[in-house]
Every structure is written in C-alpha cells, then in structure tokens.
C-alpha cells in the first residue's frame, strides 16, 4: 500500500514547486491585512518620515485612542452594522427556511409555481434603476434600518442551498410519521426539522451574516443620514473625507479644528479597517467549513 502511494504521487521537485506557488499566493492573500494592522499601530511621525512600512520606526496606539475619543459616529456605525447583521440574518434565515421547506415538500400543491417564482429572478431582473425607483417611491425605503435590511432579505441561492440540504438529510418518512402523530405543519418544521438541520441553517446564516456585514452598496443607494451608516459605508466615505468622523462627533468649533489638525488620519483609517476585518478574521477558521459546504452545494446544484 505504502509503495503504491509512493508510485502514484508526484515527484519531490514537482511537489516543492507546488508548495512554492501556493505559499506565494497565500502570502498575497494574507500579507495586505497584516500590513494594514502594522500601519494602524504606526505613529504618525513614522508614517510622515518613511511612509507606510512593514518595519515602522515607532509603534503607537494613538490611532486606536482617537477611535475611542471620536467615538460618537464610530460607535453608532459599529452598532448599526451589528444591528443590521443580527436582525437581517435572523429574518433572512426565517424566510429562507420557510420558503425552502415548502419547496422541499413534494406533496405541496403549488410547489412548481413557487419554485419558478423564486428561481426565475436569477435569470431575469429589472436591473438597478427600476429596483431603486420601486424601493424609493413605492416601498418608501430610505434613511432607515429597513432600507438596509429589506432589499437583501432573500436570495434564490440561499434557498437552493437550504432546499438541497433538506433533500439530502431529511427522510420523507419522518414528515409522514410526524403527520400521523398529528403534529401540525409548523410544529413539524420547528420542533423536528429545524433541530436536525443545524449544519444547513448554519451555512445559510453565515452566508447572509457576511453579506450584511460587508454591505456598503445598498446604504450608498438608500441612506443619506449619517445616523444609519453602517461601518463599511462609513469607511467608504473616509476614502475621501477623513475628517468625517470629527464633523459628526459632538465636538464643535475650536476643539474640533484642534483635533483635525492633530488627527493621525492615515493610521486612523487603517485602524477602522482592522476593526471591520477582526470579527471576520476571528470567526473565519470556525465557520469556514460550513461556508465551503454551502457554496459547493449552491453552485453545483444551481
């Protein structure tokens, strides 16, 4: 056995070449983030002298202390991002599970129609402008949390993942048995199906949580009031306006202009990037497995 494996594996130089290529690419993927972390703890003097560098002259937590000082808008955005992510993910999961479960049921009379109803939207859509007009004028979505959450509630891709998961892990006899025992449809779903579908639910939940956390386009379209800015959009605003945070904090007049003049703006922006990425980077090793299974299901069956 051992010998056969040896015969049928690639030669040592080839394997080394593989390692080199893959290591280089992995570095490309991870080094920018490390670099940004380093910049965020570099002192403004060092940045002025030698620019952004992997080996700063002086380490300083200045940027993070400014983050605390300029709190208002920042905490508000952090809170907005969390709220939108938690609430949005919960609603997305609920609606996706309900929809996918009904589509999974072979004895559902309108199964064909509702399957088409959801999946046709993957092939054809109104496009950006009509969707924007409908959301703004018909549904009145602007300047509210609803305006960020509602436009991305459902996604046919998630429904496919969930339905495929039901198909592969729930035997139909289970539903028949529950029906014979007199359990209602909702009771069957919430008491029997959901508890045994945790991996599928985790996949859909994580995919939508990431989508909400990373969203900046929808706030850009529908939100004008800084009160509702999520972190990502705040960060985008700061590409051009670094003093945005100061303007939106409670400080006024001399105090504000004083702060603007001493602001470690470069490090501060990078500190915000770190604050956005850290929740993802921390959770990532744990949730990666679920995401991989979900994405492979969705794209192969879709």
């Amino acid at each position: 056995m051992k010998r056969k494996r040896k015969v049928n594996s690639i030669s040592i130089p080839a394997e080394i070449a593989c390692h080199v290529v893959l290591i280089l690419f992995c570095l490309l993927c991870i080094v920018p983030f490390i670099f940004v972390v380093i910049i965020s703890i570099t002192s403004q003097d060092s940045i002025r002298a030698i620019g952004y560098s992997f080996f700063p002259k002086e380490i300083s937590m200045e940027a993070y202390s400014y983050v605390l000082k300029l709190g208002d808008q920042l905490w508000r955005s952090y809170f907005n991002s969390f709220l939108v992510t938690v609430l949005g993910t919960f609603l997305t999961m609920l609606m996706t599970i309900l929809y996918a479960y009904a589509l999974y049921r072979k004895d559902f009379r309108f199964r064909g129609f509702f399957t088409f109803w959801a999946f046709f939207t993957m092939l054809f859509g109104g496009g950006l402008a009509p969707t924007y007009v409908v959301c703004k004028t018909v549904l009145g979505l602007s300047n509210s949390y609803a305006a960020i959450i509602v436009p991305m509630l459902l996604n046919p891709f998630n429904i496919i993942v969930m339905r495929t998961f039901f198909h592969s892990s729930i035997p139909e006899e289970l539903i028949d048995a529950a029906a014979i025992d007199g359990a209602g449809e909702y009771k069957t779903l919430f008491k029997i199906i959901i508890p045994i579908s945790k991996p599928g639910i985790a996949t859909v939940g994580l995919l939508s949580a990431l989508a909400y956390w990373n969203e900046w386009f929808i706030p850009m379209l529908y939100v004008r009031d800084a009160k509702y800015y999520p972190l990502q959009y705040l960060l985008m605003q700061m590409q051009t306006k670094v003093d945005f945070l100061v303007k939106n904090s409670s400080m006024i007049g001399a105090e504000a202009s004083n702060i603007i003049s001493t602001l470690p703006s470069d490090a501060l922006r990078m500190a915000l990037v770190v604050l956005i990425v850290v929740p993802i980077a921390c959770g990532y090793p744990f949730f990666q497995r679920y995401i991989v299974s979900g994405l492979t299901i969705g794209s192969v069956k879709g």
Partner: protein
Amino acid sequence: MSKKASFKKTIFLTTMVLPGAIWFFLLRYLPMAGIILAFKNYKVYPKNPTFWNNLTHSEWSGIKNFKFLFATTDSWTYIRNTIGYNALWIVLGLVIAVAFAIMLNEITHKFVAKTYQTLMFFPYFLSWVVASYFLLAFLDPTRGLIDHFLVNHGMNKIDWYNTPKYWPFILTICNLWKNIGYSSILYLAAITGIDTSQYEAAAIDGASKWQQIWYVTIPNLRPMICILLIMNVGKIFNADFGLFYTVPLDSGSLYSATMVIDTYIYQVMTATSNIGMSTAGGLLQNAVGFVCIVIANKIVKKIDEDSSLF
C-alpha cells in the same frame, strides 16, 4: 388522507412561502414591470409624485434611451472594458483555479493543504471597500509602500491613481486575489469526489502523473468547468461594481481603464438622474446575458451533450 386534511396542509404550506413570495413580488417582479421606464422619458410628476403617477405622466420616447447608451463618447470605453475584463478573467480564473485545485490535491500533507486552502479563501470574505484600503497601503501617492521604495532607490514615483495604463493589471490581480480561493475550492471539492480506482487503474496501466491529470482529472472536472463557464459567460456584460468603483477610488482620470457598464449606469442614474437611460442599460445587460447563456449552452451541448446546463 381526507380532503379536509389535504386542504389544510396546502393552506399551511402556502402561508410558509407567502412572506418570501411577497418579497419576490415587491422587490423583483415589480421592478421588472419598471422596465417600461427604458422606453419612457422618466420625469417626476410634481403634483403627486407616486411611482404610478410618475410612470403614466412620463412621455414615451421609443428607443431613444438605447440610442444614447451607444452614442456617448464613453460607450466604446465601457463596452470594451466590460467584455474585455470579463473574457480575460473567465479564462485566467478557470486555468489558475483548476491548477491550484490540482496542486492542493497532490500535496501529500493534508494538513498543509488545508492551511493553504484556508488562507487562500480569506479575501473572499472581505468587501471591496476593505480591499481598496489594502491596495491604498501599497499604492498611496505620498505614503504608499511602492512609491517610497521607488523614491528611496532613486527612481521616479508613479502616480498610480492617475495613470490608467497600470490599472488593467491591478484590477486583474485584485479580481484573482479575491475570487481564486473560492473557485479553487469548488474544483477541489469536485476532484476529491473522483473515484480513486480510476487513478489506480491508470497507474497500473503505466500512466504518469501528468497523464493522469490530463486523462482522468480534467475529464472528470469537465461538467463542472462547463457549468461554471456557461454561467460566467452569461454574466459577460455584468461587472463587479465594487471592484471597479471603490478599488480605483472612483478616480476620474482612470475611467478609460476602469469604466464598465455597471459603474456607467450608476453614474448616469445618480449624477444625471436619467432613470430611463440607466434602465435601458440594465435591460441591455439582461438581454445580452440571456443570449450569451443560450449560445454558450448550445456550444457546450455540441461538444459534450451531458455537460450542458439545460
């Protein structure tokens, strides 16, 4: 089952799909009806500006909106960029992702392969806004790593955000950086699903590793390659808005290299609030995508009956 029970079941299951079905109606089907806007000269009706009033009081304009799409000086730029980048990235993405997947599969230490996979997949979870800051750390004109390096070594610095000629490369790297991890994992999943006895049989027949890859792995990946290819070709007239909008910091002097149809439509909609024209653009994208998907599917079907999508 009694008639009453079956009726009750239908009712309950219908209530389950109802919230989702209503959502699809309001946010997907209603905008489809809004496609009429592409043929109208959309104006806000000042007396009572509801959607319906705006729609009915706007004049018909025939295909004028579509003509405008092709008549501006930017038309050629955004059409060339959209299709050019997509075509290049479909090919590059496919070749590199399959190569990486095969490499990952051949590595003897599974733990090491797993680690590579985890690191490669990481950028997929970041937004383009975050990625734009990553890039800024390297390319910033005053503080960026690369320009500092150039100056320190007696070279002229490069004004990255005002020099379009570098951006085809930069955008390509960014796109691969973010998406290769994901597609390699898809292909890797397909490779691990291949029956190992095929390799054993090939090895006994004296096939070298290269021959095995060429005659066993690739043919087994073919259905998956075809499906992803068809879907990507269907999106050939759609661009990743975030990549083209945030990564070049929406810099006007880069438009010749970075303007694609999605950013163009967005600009038309927000800067000039020409709803009719941007609707026409969206409709065009949809129509081109649909035609491309059908053609790609036909071609794949001609070559390999089983690998086609429909």
